[in-house]
């Protein structure tokens, strides 16, 4: 048992993304393009969590994120927490924050928006963060929290 646990736990250098709601874990994987990485990744899902019921966790060896990149996941996992690991120790804890602008990731809610009809990368200004509201750079319509669909 002990051996098995060890093989998926500690990483030497890298980032642990914790407290991801189990239902959005794979969305987080896709937003961060983790399928493009060739470094060691450990993904656990539907683990017991007092706060979330079921949570997901991603451990990324030798990967460190810029704020701009990691903040993208705040759209689907606003309570996710980051542990930065150096030499097996947690040297920094970070929370994610919704950025002021979102490029790509989200589909515009308006079916008549040009971005839903032609090959265009979506762009939004975040006009409200407490209850997420995204204003489309193109059609100027608001996509709100309940309608956020990840591309």
């Amino acid at each position, binding site marked *: 048992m002990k051996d098995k646990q060890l093989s998926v736990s500690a990483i030497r250098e890298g980032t642990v993304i914790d407290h991801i709601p189990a239902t959005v874990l794979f969305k987080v994987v896709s937003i961060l393009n983790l399928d493009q990485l060739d470094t060691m990744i450990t993904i656990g899902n539907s683990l017991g969590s007092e706060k979330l019921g079921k949570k997901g966790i991603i451990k990324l060896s030798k990967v460190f994120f810029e704020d701009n990149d990691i903040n993208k996941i705040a759209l689907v996992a606003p309570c996710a927490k980051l542990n930065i690991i150096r030499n097996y120790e947690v040297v920094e804890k970070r929370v994610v924050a919704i950025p002021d602008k979102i490029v790509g990731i989200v589909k*515009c809610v*308006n079916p*008549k*928006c*040009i*971005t839903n*009809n*032609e*090959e*265009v990368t979506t762009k939004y200004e975040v006009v409200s963060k407490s209850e997420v509201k995204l204003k*489309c*750079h*193109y*059609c*100027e*319509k*608001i996509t709100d929290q309940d309608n956020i669909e990840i591309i």
Partner: protein
Amino acid sequence: MKNKNLVSITDFTKEEYLKILELAAEFEKKPRQDILKGYVISTLFFEPSTRTRLSFETAINGLSGRVIGFSDSGATSASKGETLHDTIKMVSNYADLIVMRHPLEGSARLASEVSSVPIVNAGDGANQHPSQTLLDMYSILKTQDTLENLKIFMVGDLKYGRTVHSLLQAMSEFNTTFYFISPDELKMPATYKLHLDKMGLEYYEGKDLTEFLPQADIIYMTRVQQERFTDPIEYEMVKNAYILRKDMLEGTKETMKVLHPLPRVNEIHPDVDESPHAYYFDQARNGVYVRMAILSSILGVK
């Protein structure tokens, strides 16, 4: 303003609105000039709009510019599946400026990012139609001698009407008090009311058209369209409540004017046409001068 795009009314500042309106007044005094001689302006109408296209083309012709373009995408490569991106790339090789109307929202913004020449949005779906807004402002300025501190009534479909949304955005720079008169189904969306709150402006909402009319400086009528209602019975119940008749104008200010972006269906009774308050046909004529002002300032000839 040289080489600036006019996609959304908020692309321009208050100073730029005023500059356009000042120029429009100059063109009204002298509507035949050859300042656009040698310029080619493309009018791309991916959906038909006779009124807007003729207004732009009249403006271009009046200033001796040349027009290339189309009035219906059925006759173009768009019908062969060419993307907007590619059409704009191609046309920006030929013209000095592109005026475009497109059924999809955000199309003009995309075009402005792709094009090497300025884009003037002549309507992108239900989103923006800034030259309409500027001509509305010109009509208000002409009839009221000022844009500041006016009481503007917006009546009818305030939910989907892009003209009222853009006019609200622009006029909010001039300490306007707004009165929104509409059926419950077609109320002004929260986003715009929030904008007014942020600007510290007063506004009133109501269902009864006649109640506050004596205070109005401008009544801006819009069409209540049947297709906006999910329940046809609802439409039947409200449709007659938002029709302006001549007798309703009794007791209003002498200088008060009724505006309408046109075409009207039945929301302004024909008996209003002969009233000195009716201004909607003059409003349409003002569009030519305003479009002359927009084109010549973006091309940098004024």
